């Protein structure tokens, strides 16, 4: 594959306090595609994403974004490079309105109407709740709001941590539709997902983590077609999540 790599982690190690969590993560995220990061609970997926965002500091290794090492940069500067982060807990400001939540995701404090219309087309409920406190939204609606934050402006990379956690199947289908739309806009996406149905339906490439390392990387098509590989890599996580 000759595609360009937008985000590249090389031997990234992360300590949280005195715990050594990441033991040298190597990960490539090709530009324009959706890369799924799989792995059992506690494998280090969230820690990897947080390290990319500068919310934990890498103690070793390089994190290259479009060729620049961002491992030592501050979180706001990393975000300003065009990286949107949707954390596991979604990071919705519950005391703010839906509108205010989205407004904070714009650099200049102004909406681009065309983009806003695209958001409303995808998640109409956000329009009806526009002036309501985000704290009153359901879990699925909050997740839609969190993902929309990455859509009100063109981002280069979107990092999403387990968006389907705790959501009803119908809502998950809705989100899958959302990711397909995002993919059409050629936004590069790095998605942590334990739901293999969702992962297979949206993923182009896949990386599997275990115990603070990436233990497998390849295309989603290869993994989806190889049940023995799935069993070996994901047995644990699939058993726990389906």
């Amino acid at each position, binding site marked *: 594959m000759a595609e360009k790599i937008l985000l590249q982690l090389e031997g990234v190690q992360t300590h949280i306090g005195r715990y050594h969590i990441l033991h040298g993560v190597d990960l490539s995220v090709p530009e324009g595609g959706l890369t799924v990061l799989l792995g059992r609970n506690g494998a280090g997926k969230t820690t990897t994403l947080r390290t990319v*965002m500068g*919310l934990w500091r890498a103690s070793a290794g390089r994190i290259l974004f479009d060729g620049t090492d961002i491992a030592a940069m*501050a*979180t*706001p500067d990393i*975000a*300003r490079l065009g990286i949107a*982060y949707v*954390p596991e*807990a979604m*990071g919705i*400001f*519950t*005391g*703010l*309105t839906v509108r*205010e939540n989205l*407004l*904070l*995701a714009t*650099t200049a*404090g102004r909406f681009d109407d065309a983009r806003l219309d695209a958001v409303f087309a995808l998640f109409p409920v956000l329009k009806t709740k526009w*002036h*309501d*406190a985000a*704290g*009153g939204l359901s879990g699925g609606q909050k997740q839609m709001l969190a993902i929309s*934050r990455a859509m009100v402006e063109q981002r280069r990379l979107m990092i999403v941590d387990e968006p389907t956690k705790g959501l009803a199947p119908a809502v998950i289908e809705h989100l899958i539709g959302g990711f397909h739309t995002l993919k059409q806009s050629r936004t590069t996406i790095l998605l942590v997902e334990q739901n293999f149905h969702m992962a297979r339906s949206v993923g182009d490439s896949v990386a599997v983590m275990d115990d603070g390392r990436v233990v497998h990387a390849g295309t989603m098509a290869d993994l989806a077609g190889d049940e023995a590989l799935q069993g070996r890599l994901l047995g644990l996580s699939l058993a726990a999540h389906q």
Partner: protein
Amino acid sequence: MKRDLTPWLLLPIVALAMLPLMSFSTWLTLTIAGAAMGMMLFLMASGLTLVFGLMDVMNFAHGAFITLGAYLAVTVLGRLSGWGGPDSLAWNLAALAVAVTTGAIATGAVGAVFERVIIRRVYGSHLQQILITMGGLIVAGQLVIVLWGAQPLQVAKPVLLRGSFLLGGAAIETYRLVAVVLGLLVFGIAYLVLNRTRIGLLVRAGVENREMVEALGFRIERLFVAVFVAGAALAGIGGVMWGGYQEVVTATIGDEMTVLIFIVIIIGGLGSVTGCFQAAVLVGLTTNYVGYLTPKLALGSNIALMVLVLLWRPRGLFPVAKQ
């Protein structure tokens, strides 16, 4: 957006409940005195609640800003005593306005230095914050003594602001009315800044989830410096007004308010300016009513008030969601 209005009912309920216990003119005098004290408490406390809410920083030296404000009232009003004569209310008010402005600018500047030299080094550690800001408070107290001397100083309060006028059979001190107007003005401005500007939006978001604000590309430290300086300036204004209210200023005038200020920000809900405003007025009213009915219980009544409010709403009147 739906707003939580129940706590707002508390103020009229408390005020009206006191009416049968005293004559109307006494009630009116106490209510205005309580409101005035509440406004000054609000000025003194509002910065502290935001600093805690936004950065989780405990600043026990906040009282020093109040003390500084009070001493600036002594100095500025002393210099401008020519404006404070009995002929013109406008000049009287102008003298107070200059004192308030000087207090705001000077304490804001001191706050900026204090943030940079001390607070910035102790982010994340409450124990260090408590120790170092307590130390800062002691140093500030000594500096005040070096600059202004150890003896209590008289505030040259403009003459017409000392007087009172009759309203509904009650004697209302002019100064208290001025304090109420100023407090409402500052609350109004703070409310508009927080709810209608981008900086305000960032502050409200940051109080709830600092990390996410950073992940959206905003430098929270800059926001925090701005809030810290504004909070110090407000405490300075509060100190000027409180000094003028007390008329005699000592080096512990700010420290003496610290307990009351902590009660206010806890009742209001840490991080909430609206809650701080509510709670300040509630504490001001309670202090005055109880001080009149059973003087011995005045401070105890505020602690009892805090306990009651926390039993009703464990995180204060206007709890701020924290993540």
